[in-house]
């Protein structure tokens, strides 16, 4: 079965969901992950529509990467995963390894923060891209070489023909990230998960890679989930943004609305903690304390101990995401916040 879907895709058939935009490409329901009894992800509901760019922000350990590693069966045997992850209706959790192999890189591709460790240091770059083309599109020999060259040119690697013969260590960090993007595109995926793709790169190179991601996403009609700690990066690329804290989604909204009218106190706090690039300088509003350790979560809302709006009621139960506007959800028992919060 996986072979059939791969060859169908090689024939250029793209995104069945495009004709049915109301049906999510990926639908995650009550996804939970724990490691040796310690919860890392505590019930996530999340859907990605075909062709849309969604951002996931949050601080280290909030679960934004774990969500997708769990969805793709990439967590080790110590992880206990429950819930449901459907790719156009097909359940991925507990799917046979051969099926997941076809999905990973084929339907859903992933790129990471550190391209140098994701590439194989002992193989030439061209060989690595051709391998992806062979696995996911069944291309061999000259056809694979021609397609690898096309992909290298597409992602803007200068002197592409010669670079196919290079090794990862001969390339800069920015060029290696372009190679990773070329490999991700090799399978013509429906969804690209980009996990902190520009965090290790210099500012001007980050701008190049963000532009490239925007272009290929629009051009291929591919959906993208951009995982980042940098709200600016997410604002730049995504139309919808989810904010995670301590293994839960705490707010989800259209990007412009989230940044202009954040509802959850944690989102407000994150935005207040960012220095501005223009206007008068003001003292930053820091969120007091630090993220709780996964094994020592407070009762009820995990953000309550750091929250200026918390009351005794916040410890009573974990708040669920509730609608606070059109397509805008937040998980906070104190909503709407008193007026002072808006500032």
């Amino acid at each position: 079965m996986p072979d059939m879907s791969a060859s169908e895709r090689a024939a250029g058939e793209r995104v069945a969901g495009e004709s049915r935009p109301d049906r999510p490409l990926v639908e995650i329901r009550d996804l939970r992950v724990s490691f040796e009894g310690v919860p890392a992800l505590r019930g996530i509901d999340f859907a990605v529509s075909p062709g849309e760019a969604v951002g996931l922000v949050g601080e280290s350990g909030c679960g934004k990467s774990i969500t997708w590693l769990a969805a793709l069966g990439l967590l080790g045997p110590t992880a206990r995963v429950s819930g449901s992850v459907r790719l156009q209706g097909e359940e991925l959790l507990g799917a046979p390894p051969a099926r997941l192999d076809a999905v990973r890189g084929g339907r859903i591709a992933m790129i990471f923060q550190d391209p140098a460790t994701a590439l194989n240091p002992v193989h030439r770059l061209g060989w690595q891209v051709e391998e992806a083309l062979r696995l996911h599109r069944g291309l061999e020999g000259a056809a694979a070489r021609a397609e690898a060259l096309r992909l290298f040119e597409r992602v803007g690697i200068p002197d592409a023909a010669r670079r196919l013969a290079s090794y990862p260590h001969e390339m800069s960090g920015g060029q290696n990230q372009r190679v990773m993007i070329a490999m991700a595109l090799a399978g013509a995926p429906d969804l690209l998960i980009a996990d902190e793709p520009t965090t290790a790169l210099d500012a001007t190179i980050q701008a190049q890679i963000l532009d490239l991601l925007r272009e290929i996403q629009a051009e291929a009609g591919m959906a993208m989930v951009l995982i980042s700690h940098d709200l600016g990066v997410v604002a730049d690329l995504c139309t919808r943004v989810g904010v995670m804290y301590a293994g839960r989604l705490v707010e989800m909204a259209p990007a412009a609305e989230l940044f202009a009218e954040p509802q959850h106190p944690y989102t407000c706090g994150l935005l207040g903690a960012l220095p501005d690039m223009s206007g008068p300088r003001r003292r930053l509003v820091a969120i007091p304390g630090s993220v709780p350790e996964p094994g020592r979560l407070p009762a009820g809302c995990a953000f309550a101990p750091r929250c200026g709006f918390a009351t005794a009621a916040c410890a009573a139960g974990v708040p669920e995401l509730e609608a606070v506007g059109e397509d805008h959800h937040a998980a906070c028992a104190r909503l709407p916040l008193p007026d002072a919060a808006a500032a």
Partner: protein
Amino acid sequence: MTKLLELDGVSRTYSSRSGLFGAPIPVRAVDGVSLSVAPGRTLGIVGESGCGKSTTGRLALGLERPDAGSVRFAGAPMPAPGTAAWRRQRARMQLVFQDPLGALDRRLPIARQIAEPLVVHGIGNRAEREARVAALLADVGLPAELGRRHPHELSGGQRQRAVLARALATNPSLLVCDEPISALDVSIQAQVVNMLADLQAERGIALIFISHDLKVVRQVSHEVAVMYLGRVVEQGDPDEIFAEPAHPYSRALVSAVPSVGPRRIERIVLKGDPPNPADRPSGCAFHPRCPLATAQCRAESPALRPLVDGRLVACHLAATRRLVA
């Protein structure tokens, strides 16, 4: 204003080899940089990897000797490394860098490590040192009992506070912070930035704040220097430079800052990677990536010259004010 620290035309060249048997190639990490910082003020240094900002910080601290130029601290030349005078001076200037876990000894409790500079410099007796450590922990907002814990028992933000407490132990007049908050989460970054501002206001410490994060540099700095390939290309008031960058490189750098608000400067995406310092382009080192480069830029290296508003810019085109709106 009297300067606490003055770098005057400092250069630092390293030797690098291409391959195992290649001939050594001189690499100018820092090339004729002149900067200064006054007591109680912050000099921000921004630029991308390989621009020489960290080497500049090490030259400022006397951890490296310049091959050319001079470093003066409190009006006197920097003593030779390893001498008694150098050690005395070192107590007055401290370095804080990105990775607090790497800067701390994993086997020792935090309080012992904060006391270490006091022991090294022979300051106080045991009881006085204990009192000083308690005061330092309070100064950086750490509860006293954390002093008994080991580095791995602290969060990233707490570790960076501990590193700061240790740096403050000898009551330095200069702190060089090299990417001090880059490894921290956003909400913790703001805590550390605010704390640095408070400590500076209370103690009149001069700061050299080295970072790739322009937003944070703007937040903390009184003056900012933009470096490219070992040289300062623009220097002046951070509000002016970040609102209206005059050098095409500063302009690209500022325009590349991802922002949640509306963009004030249209994004300029530079082509290519930052060049290799071992293979410095002719003329202006930025010309291969510069959208405005002319024949003059390829041939002549521009000097850092003042514009009418007082900031310094090293660009042939900025000098004719064609770049300044």
